[in-house]
């Protein structure tokens, strides 16, 4: 049976500074199917969908809707063509009610252009009924659960007569029963002829809901398969598996005493019973997909979640990490994922950023001691080979790799025993990556305990002495010293495929 083609995106390319986010991707969706789009973090799924939604413009390529070539310059023009996208971070206004949100910008007007709420409420009720939920149309969105807000977004999409509905990680923050409900809604929409593009990391969901699957990897389209041709292992293999081009420093030969031990660490709705340890001299890798809680774990260890339960032992002493200040005092350093907003003050100089975490030590009575500051900065600029014309250069003018080194200097200044790196090589070029890898290994061999979070599988495998895999806020697998590990095995657990259906 030949199905009608709803959408065809041909040879779509998109460049961001320094990265080719999409490389001649072709993506075809049939009328009335549920089409899953899968791939690792950063594979280009969201970029592709933003192009479809008119939020980004492609640098190359063409889009055809029902065989007709179209341009989608704005989100509005996407709606007009029947394309709606429900982003992961929902786009509703919390202080308006459901009706106002559904019809925002397209309100029904009555006489004298006065808003006719009675008509809108009636229509909203029928839309919500089509979605199959009983939400009162005049409820403030603020008072709805995430799942309900998502249902409102679906209703909004229906009000736009969506023919193609894109859902970006719709189940990321839903409970089990809410996921069931969502799947019910999706099947129902499908039976009414709506085409659905379903982006998800959770492969078990893909097998349950999708008719066909397209796999993206590193901005390239690997292929489109009907769900019958695939099994879990095959899909995982398609998603990962690439040629190793990077070389990594040699791994640790021996490790020292236990530096950090975490027992039953839980944060309500974020982390579930996390147990792990890191020894002096080793680099422990954490891998997880978006929403797995890997960054939350790092933040918990750095005092972001004061209401955690469980025990954190640093160098044999149980500590209460209720604030970043406490964490620093206990010898924890944290190089965050988003270096530009969380790691550095971009408008300040290399020197100011380096001394930021140790200002107390730089002070003699009231004033900062310029000589002490300069001494410290000099040492780190030399040790880490930070390339900067002078110490007073604003860090925003440095390259990504050198910025990352400044972050590193900032934390090394606190003389930590335990260093957390969240995505240490994100957005930096290959040469600088190598340098960062060697620095990390060097620090480990100097006796620091290092926890590295990364969503790049080769990096996790190449750098880590041991690997923990996270899924849904919990550690689901540990790969110990010398244990055989490959990308597929890790992805298998990270995608939650070990959980029996």
């Amino acid at each position, binding site marked *: 049976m030949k199905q009608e083609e709803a959408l065809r995106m041909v040879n779509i390319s998109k460049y961001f500074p320094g990265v080719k986010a999409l490389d001649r991707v072709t993506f075809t969706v049939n009328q009335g199917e549920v089409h899953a789009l899968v791939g690792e973090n950063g594979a280009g799924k969201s970029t592709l969908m933003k192009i479809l939604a008119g939020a980004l413009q492609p640098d190359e390529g063409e889009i055809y809707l029902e065989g007709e070539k179209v341009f989608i310059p704005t989100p509005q023009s996407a709606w007009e063509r029947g394309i709606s996208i429900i982003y992961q971070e929902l786009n509703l206004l919390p202080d308006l009610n459901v009706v*106002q949100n559904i019809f925002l910008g397209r309100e029904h007007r009555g006489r004298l*252009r006065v808003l006719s709420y009675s008509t809108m409420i009636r229509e909203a009720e029928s839309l919500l009924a089509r979605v199959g939920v009983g939400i009162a149309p005049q409820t403030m969105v603020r008072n709805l659960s995430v799942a309900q807000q998502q249902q409102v977004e679906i209703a909004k999409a229906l009000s736009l007569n969506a023919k193609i509905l894109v859902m970006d990680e719709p189940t990321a923050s839903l409970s089990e029963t809410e996921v069931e409900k969502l799947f019910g809604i999706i099947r129902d929409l499908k039976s009414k002829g709506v085409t659905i593009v379903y982006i998800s990391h959770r492969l078990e969901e893909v097998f349950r809901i999708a008719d066909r699957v397209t796999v993206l990897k590193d901005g390239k389209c690997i292929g489109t398969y009907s769900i019958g041709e695939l099994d879990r292992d095959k899909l995982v293999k398609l998603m990962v598996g690439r040629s190793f081009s990077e070389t990594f420093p040699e791994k640790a030969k021996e490790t020292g005493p236990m530096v950090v031990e975490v027992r039953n660490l839980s944060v309500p709705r974020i982390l579930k019973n996390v147990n792990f340890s890191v020894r002096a001299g080793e680099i422990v890798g954490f891998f997880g997909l978006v929403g797995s809680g890997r960054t939350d774990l790092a933040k918990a260890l750095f005092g972001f979640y004061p209401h955690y339960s469980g025990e954190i032992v640093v160098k044999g002493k149980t500590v209460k990490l209720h604030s970043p200040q406490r964490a620093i005092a206990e010898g924890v350093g944290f190089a965050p994922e988003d270096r530009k907003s969380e790691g550095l003050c971009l408008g300040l100089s290399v020197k100011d950023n380096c001394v930021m975490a140790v200002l107390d030590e730089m002070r003699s009575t009231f004033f900062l001691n310029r000589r002490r500051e300069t001494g410290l900065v000099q040492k780190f600029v030399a040790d880490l080979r930070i390339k900067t014309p002078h110490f007073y250069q604003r860090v925003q003018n440095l390259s990504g790799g050198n910025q990352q080194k400044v972050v590193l200097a900032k934390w090394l200044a606190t003389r930590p025993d335990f260093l957390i790196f969240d995505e240490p090589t994100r957005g930096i070029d290959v040469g600088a990556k190598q340098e960062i890898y060697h620095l990390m290994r060097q620090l480990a061999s100097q006796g620091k305990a290092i926890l590295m979070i990364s969503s790049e599988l080769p990096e996790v495998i190449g750098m880590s002495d041991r690997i923990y895999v996270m899924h849904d806020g919990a550690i689901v697998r540990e790969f110990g010293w010398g244990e055989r590990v490959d990308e597929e095995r890790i992805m298998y657990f990270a995608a939650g495929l070990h959980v029996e259906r």
Partner: protein
Amino acid sequence: MVTLIQRILRGNPTLFFVYVILFVFFVFAASTAPQFRTVYNISNLLRQAVAFGIVGIGQTIVILSGGIDLSVGSLISLAACLTSGIMIGNPTLVFPIVFLVLGIGVLVGLTNGTLVAYLRVPPFIATLAMSAILQGSVLLYTKKPVGGVTRGFMFFANGQLGAIPFAFVFWVILLSFFLFLLRRTGLGLHVYAIGGNQEIARLSGIRVSVAKVAVYVISGFMAALTGLFLASRLGIGDPLMGQGFELESITAVLIGGTSLAGGKGGIEGTIAGVLIIALINNILNLLGVSGFWQWIIKGIVVIVVVAAYKVKE
């Protein structure tokens, strides 16, 4: 009527809270000062409230959109001085002057709005600069109270409809109009949406810049109207009479539960905020408390009320 009020209050606990405060202040005033309970005093209080009340409506709408208008104080002074300074007791000039002054208000608002919406000048800075320009202009025009209005024009602020001040009736009409504008028109909804999240508003196809300009135009118009009102009330325009109105109006808006970040609150709360401030002024005057204490007490009330909102969140 009662059920409508119930519905509004149930949907909005903040509003309930601010009206309780108003009620408490009222009971306190009525029980401590016997002079408070006179018809004369109450109508005087309402007149006082109207001055803040008119400019407060405009300020509420600007703040709902995520902006702020600091130019209203000087605009009020300018409007009042032009009114009395040109009129000088000539009845044939009343209507042309009203149009002129309101037109100037609209023009000032248009300028503020253009600066904010199209040139992306932060509202705080655009309107602060505008305030300085207007204050300078009015002081170039006159350095002391100037001219005078006609007896007929004084009816606007001082006239009575039976026991009720005409000005209060006028305010109620204005309130109804702008309540309707905010709750039942596209512009009103868009103001809330822009204040809530400008990007979402833009992506929903709302013409954000147009709405922003409209908001400052409304505020400028209302400030000019307040200037007319004050000239009518005192019979003469003073180049400094609007001083403090920008802050008092913002105070009333905040007490009324509108969020300074925008997108949340409304004129319903500002009404109570305006009445609370008028009550505080009035009762402290009656008790013979110095004006400086009034500042201190108003400052404390703002801090307490806004902190209470934040804690409740």
